[in-house]
Structures are given as C-alpha cells and as structure tokens.
C-alpha cells in the first residue's frame, strides 16, 4: 500500500514536471547558450566589454542541435535594464548561422547589463543571454599655449573629448595655475555641445601674477559616464606697454614755478597707478615720485636760469615695459614785465627821510 502511494506520488510529480517543462518555450542552459528542441542559439563571446559611447558588436550563432547552421533567421537583441527588456537591434543570420548586432555608440550608463538574443525558426523559439560590461569613457583635453601682456585679459579655449574624438558636453573643467608649487584655482567652466570651454584669464585680478611663464593645468574630474583627465599648458605673461604724456602747468620763467604733469597709461588706455617717475633736466635727476591712482604725477620745478632745457621723464613699473618721454622747455628770464614797486620804494624813501629828520630834530 505504502509502496503504491509513493509510486503514485512520484508519478504525479513526474507528470507535473513534464507538463511544466512542456509549457516553457526556451530553456536557458547557461550564459550565451540557448537550446530548444532542435535549435541552438549562442553568443560568440562569453561576455562583452565596452566603453560608454564606444561601438559594440554582439555576435551570435544559430544552429540546429546537430550543429547545422540555420541561415536567414532574424535574431533580435535586447538589453535588460532594471528587469525591463529593451530592444537594441536585430539582424538575419548568414549562411553559417552567424548574426551580429552593431551599435554605433553605447549610450547606456556604465555598469553591468544582461543582453538577450532571441530567434524563431519554424515556430520554434530560442533565446540566449550574455553579460555586457559598459565602462566609463576615457577623455582627453586639448588646449594651446597662451601669451598675454601683464594686466591684460586673455581667453583660453579647452576642448574635452573622448578618446575616439567625440566631444564631451556639459563637463565641468577647472583651470589651475601653478604658483610657488601650489595649484591655485583661477577659473571654472562647463563644456558646450562641442566639448569646448572658454576661460577668461585676467592677470589684473590676481595681483600676485607677474611677468613670467606659468604652468596652467586644466582638470576634468570625471563623471558618471567619463573618466577624469587633465592637461597642462603654459601661460606666458609678458610686460605691458606703457604710454607716457608730459605736459606743463604754469609759466616757465625764472623765479616762477612750472609743474610738470606726467600721465601714464597702459596699452589698454587704463591709468597706471604707483608707477615710478624719474624726471631729468638736462641729464640731472631732479625728481622722483609715483603716479597716483589716476596715473598722474606732478612735479614742481622752479627754474633758476633762463635757457632751453631738455626734460626727460622716465617711467618704470614692475611688469611693465619701461617708457620715457622727453621735450624741450624754454625758460624765460626774470620777467622784465614787472614794474618797480614805486609806492613801496617811495614809502621807503619817506621812512629814510623820517629818520634823517628825526636825527636832525632831536639833536
């Protein structure tokens, strides 16, 4: 009795298993390999690896169980994202049962995915699966060397692209300047659709930047899709050109004073403050001073002798090209135009007469 019951139970279980197996259309044996009845579908590679935005070719073979290839069967390829199958392409098998699916650019986020391939032949359905590993794409930054005059602004263009040359948009690039062994961040910008970012560098903004050559480093810290990268460039800061204008206030006459007004501007027309001014008159240094915040310096000179004087004004400021300006100043003699102070002299005479009369009167 017991044996009968056990036997009947086993039979029921066997029937159930048989029925369930008959209902399943495909049987997954292992990765890359599918087999249903007489059909066998398998991926040529056990797993696929690629980078984000790189091309990918998935290859399968469809054969009968005895190994005979099956041509002209349409094979569909799917990617499984969050348990959802997403169709990515399809192709017909060739004479040798080979079919491939070529994807120009992988646009899926880096990670591990399951890839499915399905085929149907004479009502029989077969499916194979494999793993796809998408890595972050390698990037490169292209830029050029820069040359700028002190206090000027300049722009630096950087282009971020993948190792395949594709632009990387929306990436944040940081610009560093190496000063005293330290990397000092001076700008930050986001790449455009073409992978380009423009940085404006103002040497005036950073007063510690002087004339010389500096390393510039542009850094991309990477993202979910792209690997970090960096590049080095050079910033060559050259001396700024100065323009000097000298004019005079007052009449150049012996006994009077004339003010020599010096105005210094840079190449951009901006006044240059605190520039050192040296004034030479006939080769002799007569005055040293500095321009004010408006780039103006005034020097008062009282000529002692009439004649023609050569006034030379030399301007020096660190990080600027030295400049000078000279002009000729004619100094007139003591103006013969003034009249004798007659009233004053007559009063003096009056006082002297008063003394004489006082002596006379008091004797």
């Amino acid at each position, binding site marked *: 009795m017991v044996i009968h019951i056990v036997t009947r139970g086993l039979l029921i279980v066997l029937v159930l298993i048989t029925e369930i197996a008959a209902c399943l259309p495909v049987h997954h044996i292992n990765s890359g390999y599918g087999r249903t009845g007489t059909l066998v579908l398998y991926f040529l590679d056990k797993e696929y690896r690629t980078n984000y935005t790189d091309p990918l070719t998935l290859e399968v073979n469809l054969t009968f169980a005895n190994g005979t290839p099956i041509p002209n069967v349409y094979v569909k390829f799917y990617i499984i994202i969050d348990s959802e199958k997403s169709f990515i392409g399809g192709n017909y098998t060739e004479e040798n049962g080979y079919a491939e699916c070529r994807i120009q650019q992988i646009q899926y986020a880096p990670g591990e995915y399951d890839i499915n391939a399905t085929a149907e032949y004479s009502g029989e359905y077969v499916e194979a699966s494999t793993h796809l590993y998408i890595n972050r794409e390698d990037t490169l930054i292209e830029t050029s060397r820069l040359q700028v005059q002190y206090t000027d602004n300049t722009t630096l263009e950087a282009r971020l692209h993948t190792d395949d040359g594709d632009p990387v948009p929306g990436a944040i690039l940081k610009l560093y300047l190496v000063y005293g062994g330290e990397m000092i961040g001076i700008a930050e910008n986001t790449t455009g659709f073409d992978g380009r970012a423009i940085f404006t560098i103002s040497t005036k903004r950073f007063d510690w930047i002087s004339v010389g050559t500096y390393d510039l480093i542009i850094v991309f810290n990477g993202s979910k899709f792209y690997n970090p990268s960096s590049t080095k460039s050079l910033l060559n800061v050259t001396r700024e050109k100065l*323009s*000097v*204008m000298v*004019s*005079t*206030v*007052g*009449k150049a006459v012996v*006994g*009077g*004073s*004339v*003010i020599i*007004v010096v*105005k210094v*501007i840079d190449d951009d*027309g901006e*006044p240059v403050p605190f520039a050192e001014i040296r004034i030479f008159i006939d080769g002799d240094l007569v005055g040293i001073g500095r321009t*004010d915040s*408006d780039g*103006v*310096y*005034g*020097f*008062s000179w009282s000529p002692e002798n009439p004649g023609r004087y050569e006034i030379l004004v030399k301007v020096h400021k660190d990080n600027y090209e030295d400049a000078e300006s000279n002009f000729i100043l004619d100094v007139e003699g*003591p*103006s013969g*135009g*003034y*009249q004798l*102070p*007659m*009233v*004053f*002299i*007559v*009063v*003096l005479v*009056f*006082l*002297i*007469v*008063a*003394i004489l*009369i*006082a002596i*006379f*009167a*008091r*004797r």
Partner: protein
Amino acid sequence: MKKRQLLGGLILLIFASTLAIVAAPSDHPRGRYHIKATMIIEDRELSIELKTYLGDRDGIIIQRTNTTTIKRQEVRINYTIIILGLDMYARRPGNSFWAYVSLAIDNKTEIFRERIPTVSGELIGPDGSSEPMRVCYENGRIKLQKAIRVNTRIAFYVFLLVIVIWAIVALNPLIIALAIPVLAILLVNIPAEDALSVFWDPAIALIFGAFIIAYAMDKSGLAKRIAYIVVSRTKSPTRLIFSISLISFILAMWMSSLATMIVMLPIISTILKVFNADQRSRYAQGITLSIMLAAILGGMTTIVGNPANALAASITYRLRGIRIEFLEWMLYSVPVALLILLIIDLVICLRFNIERDLKEGLIRFDEKVIFTFRAHLMGMGPLTKQEKITLVVFLGTVMGWFTSSILALMGYVYYLHVAAVALAAGLVLMATGIFTIEDMRKMRWDILLVLGGSLSLVVLMDESGIMDVFLVELIGVGYFQILVMVIILLVILSIILGPLAGVAVALPLMILSFEPTKAIIIYASILSCSMVFGPQGIVLEEYARGRGFLTYKNYVRLGAIYTVISLATIIPLIFLFA
C-alpha cells in the same frame, strides 16, 4: 616842541600828504566786476571768469568751470580750471573780493595739494580797468584776494601820519597806540570789533602773564639772588663780564629787557663800588654795555622775551594759520643770540680792557673782592617763602611753555596754549600774595597798549587795502628782491618806531607776498629786536647812563659795532633759510 621838530614834522607832513594823494589808489566804486583767473597749460592760457557785483551785502556762492583737453598720441589729459566765489561782495572796509581757484586733472584735484600751480588773478572793474589780485595759498587751495578799497586814501594818510607823529613829534607812544584804533574806526570806518579786539590778543595776554612773573622775580629778590650766586663764583674781571652778561641774557629770556636792566644795574653798581671804579673806567663802561646788550640779545630768544616776538608769532598765526611754538623759537634763536653775545663780549674785553684801568688806577681788583659778593649773598639769607613760590611758579611756567611746544609738535596744537600758561602763573602769584593789586598798578601797561596799538595798525593796513597796494606792487618781483626790500623796511621801521612797529608793518608784507619759512619769520623778528639804536635801545641807554657808568659816545661806538655784528649774523641766516 623845538623849532627843528616843527620844521621836520612839517616837511614830513607835506611829504606824507603828497604821497597819500599821488600814490594811494582810488576806492572801488559799486558795480559789476569780473574776477578772472588764468593758468598756463602747455602753451595755452586757460582762464575762467566769475561775474560778480560790488553792492550792499555778501551774496551767495557760485562756481564756474572751464575744461580743456590736451591729447598726444593715445594719452589725453583733461584740465579743468574751477573758480568759486560770491555773486556779490559787500562794499565795506575790511571786506575783500575773494575767489578760490583749483585745477583738476582728469576730474581730480588732489594732485596739487602740496604742489601749487602758478595762477594769476585779475579784477576787472565796471569801467573795464584791470587790477592784479593777490594770490595766496590756503591749505593747498589757491585763493585770489583783493581788499575792497573804501576810504583807502584816508587810511594811507593815517598810516603815514602815525609815522610822522611817532618819529618826529615824539609823543608818548601810548598816545599813538591809542590813536591808531580811534582814527581807524572814526575816519576809515574799520569795524570796531576788528580794530579793538586785538588789544586782548593772545600775544598780549602772554606778555601780560610774563610781566607778572618778571615783576615777581624782581620783587621777591629771586633775580638778584641768581645774579649774586653767579657773580660770587667768578674769579677774574674778564670772566665776570662773560658771566654777568650771561645772567643778564638768561633773565632777559623771561623778563623784558628793561626789567632785566632794572635788576642787573644795582648789582653792577655794587660790583663797581667794590672795585672802587672811577667814572672814567673803561671796564665799568664795558660791563654796563655788556649787560645792556645781553638784555637785548636775551629778549630775542623767546616769544615772551620781547613783545615784538609775541607779535610776530601772533601775526603769523593770524595771516597764515601757522603756530610758531615756544621751543621752535628758542631752537632757532638761542644759538644765534649766544654767538652774537660771545662775539660782543670778546669785543668788550678787548676794547674795555681792565689792565689799562688798573695801570691808570681807575679801578682796583684783587681776589678778596669776590668775598664781598659772597657776603652780599650771605646777607640775603636763605630763600624766602616769596622767592620759593616765585621760583616754583617760574619753573612751572617754563615747563608749561615747553610742554605746550612739545604737544603742538606732536599735533596737539589746541592744548596748553602758552598765553593760558602765562596767565595761570599770574593767577598763582596773585593768589599767593606775591603779586598784589598795588603791583598791578605799577605794571608796564603802556607796553601792552603799544603792543595792542601795533596790532591795530596791522588791522588798519590789512582791511583798508594799504597792504594790498604793496602786495600787488610786489607781484612779479623776485623772491630775493622782495626779501631785501622787506628787510630794509623792517630795519628802518625798527630804528624809527621800535621792533613792535617794524614787525607789525614789515612782517605781514613778508608773509603775504611770499611764503616765508618759520625760520625766516623768527630771524626777521629777532633782527628787528636786535636794533640797539631804536627806541628800545635808547630807553636802556638812558637808564644805564643815569646810573653813571656809561657815556653816550661809548654807547654809540659799541652800539655801531654790535649792530654790524648782529646784521652780519642774522641777515645771512634769513637768506640761508629762504
């Protein structure tokens, strides 16, 4: 009055009247005026005009600007000349046309805070006539100024009349000092508050306080004791001249020259009596002259030593806003005065040698006589309470004056004013009974009033436009030429009218016509004070001659040598600091 005085007075009166009619300018009529400022930029003349009126009252402030641009290559400079003044000025004595002129470079004016460009100013009258304006500088600002002439001819005549009366008629200087404000107010219509308020100027308050201290030093016997202490330590007649003149010098630094003579002459008399000196003794004359000249020289060295010094400091502050500190004055004057004293003492030792007197028996000297001085000192006994109080007050006052100077040099100019220190010392001396009401009646009020009168003369000259006439005449005249002319005027006036009048008239002219340094002002003042032939010297000489040991001839001879030495020492210093 002698016939000669009348004749001389008449001549000078005619001269003065002619001068007043011919030389004095006419008054400014009411009407439209233009104040024009001109500045030369490069080779161009940049000018600006301010249209104004001379009317009944002062109007409102108006401003005008004129801009020119100079461009060369890429650089351009904008020069803007700005004038600021009133649209109407009141026609009254004491008022003046004024306008501030500034130059802005690229809309910024700060550049000329310390460096002033040359500006010329003109006042164009209703009839189109043009008069130059006085250019002065106030804290980096350029000010054009011209006194509004009202009753100028009368003021000029009053000024000349004062000199005529003072020099020839030889009235009491007190009468002249009081006549100046009276004539200025009644005839020239100078505002009474301007002409009279100067009679209690800080300079007068300072001298008043110093007089009280000097009086107390004399009254208490402190000054005499100091003199005897020094004399009793001297061991030779030659050294005695040096030490006694030094004492006179030091006392005169804090007392007036006359007060010093009053203290020193009895001591000299005692010394000469001990020496058994004859009236003809050269040494006796020499030692008398040495203390007299030392008293004059000592008075030069402090602001309180001579009223003219206080007046010079006061005028400088009034006209330029610059304070000459007590200590500054001493730093400049003491070395010079000591040098002159040393030279003059050497001359006295050579010219009034005691050896000849000893040979001729006109004087007797042996070391025993020194004991006589010690006996005098011992006879004075220990320091009395009055002497102690006076000494403490004197030292406290000197410390106060020094502290005031140090504070001022550190920038605290409004603290511990020297006049207040002097008055405080006077208060203490009154409170302690050293200086009494009776003493107050005996004080030299005449000197204080003469000082006030001199300041009033400055107000008259300034507000009536007389000073302006001189100053405008001096426009364009070289710096050194002005200095020479003003020094001549200073010396002549100091000889005729005394140092007070010399400083009162010549110093404003010097200060307003150019910018003299403090050293020039101090040396000009001490030059005036050094005049031994002026009224101050004559008073001292008459007082000394009255004691019997000085002849007029020797006074004139040594006075001439002293004058040459002091002029030769001080005048080069004025030019050195110019």
